[in-house]
C-alpha cells in the first residue's frame, strides 16, 4: 500500500471513528451484501496473502474457525489465527495496542470502546445476534425450571461478570424478569460459566443459546422468555493497527457475506 493510500485509510478510519461516536449504539450497519463492490473476488489470483490475527468473543469460538477454514481454502496462502476471550478483555487489549487485525465483539457497547478510540478501519458490521438461555447439567440436579431459581441461595448458580457482554445481558434479563439473582460466581467470560455447568459444579448458568447448542449433550438448555428482549449483537470490524489491512478487510467481508448459514446453524439469530 502506498503511503498516500495508507494515509487516506487512516483518515477514513478517523472519520468513521468520529461517526461511530456521533451515533453511538447504531454505528453498525449491515452494508455489505453478497456481490457488493466491497467484496473481493477470490478467483482473481492476486488476492490477499499472509497471516492475520482475529480477536473474537468466546461465544464465536466454533463458528469463526469454521468460516476461517473456508476463507483459507478460498484464498490459498492465507492464515487466520484466533484469540478468543471475554469481549471486554479483548477490547481492552486492543485499546492498549495489541497487534490485532480484526475484532469481533459480543456487544455493540464493547465494540464502541474500540471505535471510540478510532482503532477500526471500517464501520463495524453486525453479523449476528444472540440471546441468553439457562444451561443446566444434563440430569438437572438442582431441578432448575426457570430464572426464579437464580434467586435461591441454596442453589449454585453462575453468571458472567456484569463487566462483560454476557454479564450485562444477564443483568438485563434478571431486571426484566424482576429476579434478584444471587450468583455464586461472576465469571470473566461465558466459557467459564459453561465449564462450571459442564463439570456439574453449578446447578445452572446463564449462557448464550449458541453455547448450549455447541455443548451438545454436556448441558441442557432451558429457554428464558425475557431473553428475547435482551439480545446481544455481534459486530465485526477490521482494525486500523493491522499490518495486513487487505487481508483483514477481506476476512471481515467474507464473514459478513458468507457467514450467515454457519452462524444460523450454530444457533445465532440473524443480524435483524
Amino acid at each position, binding site marked *: 500500500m502506498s503511503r498516500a493510500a495508507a494515509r487516506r485509510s487512516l483518515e477514513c478510519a478517523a472519520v468513521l471513528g468520529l461517526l461511530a461516536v456521533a451515533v453511538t449504539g447504531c454505528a453498525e450497519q449491515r452494508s455489505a451484501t453478497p456481490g457488493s463492490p466491497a467484496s473481493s473476488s477470490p478467483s482473481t489470483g492476486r488476492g490477499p496473502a499472509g497471516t492475520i490475527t482475529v480477536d473474537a468473543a468466546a461465544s464465536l469460538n466454533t463458528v469463526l474457525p469454521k468460516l476461517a477454514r473456508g476463507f483459507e481454502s478460498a484464498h490459498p496462502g492465507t492464515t487466520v489465527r484466533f484469540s478468543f476471550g471475554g469481549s471486554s478483555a479483548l*477490547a481492552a487489549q486492543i485499546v492498549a495496542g495489541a497487534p490485532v487485525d480484526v475484532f469481533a465483539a459480543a456487544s455493540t457497547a464493547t465494540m464502541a470502546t474500540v471505535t471510540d478510540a478510532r482503532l477500526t478501519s471500517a464501520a463495524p458490521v453486525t453479523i449476528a445476534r444472540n440471546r441468553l438461555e439457562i444451561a443446566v447439567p444434563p440430569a438437572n440436579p438442582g431441578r432448575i425450571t426457570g430464572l426464579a431459581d437464580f434467586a435461591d441461595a441454596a442453589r449454585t448458580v*453462575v453468571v458472567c461478570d456484569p463487566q462483560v457482554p454476557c454479564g450485562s445481558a444477564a443483568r438485563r434479563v434478571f431486571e426484566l424478569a424482576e429476579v434478584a439473582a444471587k450468583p455464586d460466581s461472576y465469571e470473566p467470560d461465558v466459557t467459564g460459566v459453561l465449564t462450571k455447568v459442564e463439570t456439574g459444579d*453449578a446447578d445452572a448458568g446463564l449462557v448464550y443459546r449458541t453455547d448450549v447448542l455447541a455443548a451438545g449433550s454436556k448441558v441442557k438448555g432451558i429457554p428464558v422468555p425475557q431473553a428475547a428482549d435482551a439480545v446481544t449483537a455481534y459486530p465485526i470490524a477490521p482494525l486500523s493497527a493491522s499490518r495486513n489491512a487487505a487481508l483483514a478487510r477481506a476476512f471481515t467481508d467474507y464473514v459478513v457475506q458468507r457467514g450467515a448459514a454457519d452462524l444460523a446453524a450454530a444457533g445465532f439469530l440473524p443480524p435483524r
Partner: protein
Amino acid sequence: MIAPAVVAGVLLAGPLVALLVRAPWDRLGELLAGPVVLPALGLSFGTASASTVVCVVLGVPLAAVLAGSDGWPRLLTRVARAVVATPLVLPPVVGGIALLMLLSRTGLLGQPLFTAFGVTIPFTTAAVVIAQAFAGLPFLVLSVEGALRGVDPRFAVAAATLGASPWATFMHVTLPLAAPGLAAGAVLSFARALGEFGATITFAGSLPGVTETMPVAAYIALTSDPGAAIAIAVVLVVVALVVLLALRERWLTGLRA
C-alpha cells in the same frame, strides 16, 4: 557483560517502575477503600493467612519426613521431591483444573463428599484457601526441609540421651533450630498465596467478598475500572517488596537445600 545486565535489570524493574509511575496516587486511598478493592483486600489477606497456616500445619511434617528420607530408595525420594515441587512449575490454571477434577461436585473426592454430606467446595472461600495452599505448599516444604537438614543431628541425639521423646525432641530442639527456614517458607508461601490467580479463578470462581481475591479483582477490573486494577497491583507489588526485603537473602538459603 554490562549491556545485557542493564537490559535484564530494566526487564525486571521497568514494569514495576512504570506501574508505580502510572498509579493514581491521588485517588489511591479512595480506590483502596472503594467497593471493588476493599472486599478483595480483606479476602486476600484473610485467605492467604489461612492458607499459610494450612501450609505450616501440613508442610512441616512433610518436610520432616522428607528430611529423614536418606534411607529410602533413591527413586522414591526423587519421586517424592518431584511431587512436592510440581506446583512450583505447573501453570496455575492447570493446578485449578486438577483441583476441579479432584474436588468438584463430580470430582474424584468431591462427588462422594457431595453425595454423603452435601458438601460442595468450589465457589467457597475454602476453595480459595485450598488453591492457595496447593500453590504455596512447595515453598514451605522445600524451605523447611532444607533448614532441617542443616540442623546438627547431635543436638537431637543429646536430647534423646537425656530422655526426651522423639516428638519433644523435634518440637523443642530440632524445629526451633530450623525456625529461620520455617519463617522464610511461611512468608514465601503467604506471598505466593496472595498472588494466586489461575487456580483460584478456575477452581473457586469469582464472587466479591467470597472468592474474588485481589488478583482476580484486578483482572476483572482492568477492563472497566483500570484505576482500581492498578491500585490493587500497587498493593501487591508493595507486599512483595516488603516480603523480600524482610527476608533479606534467607529465602535463597532456605530453598538451596
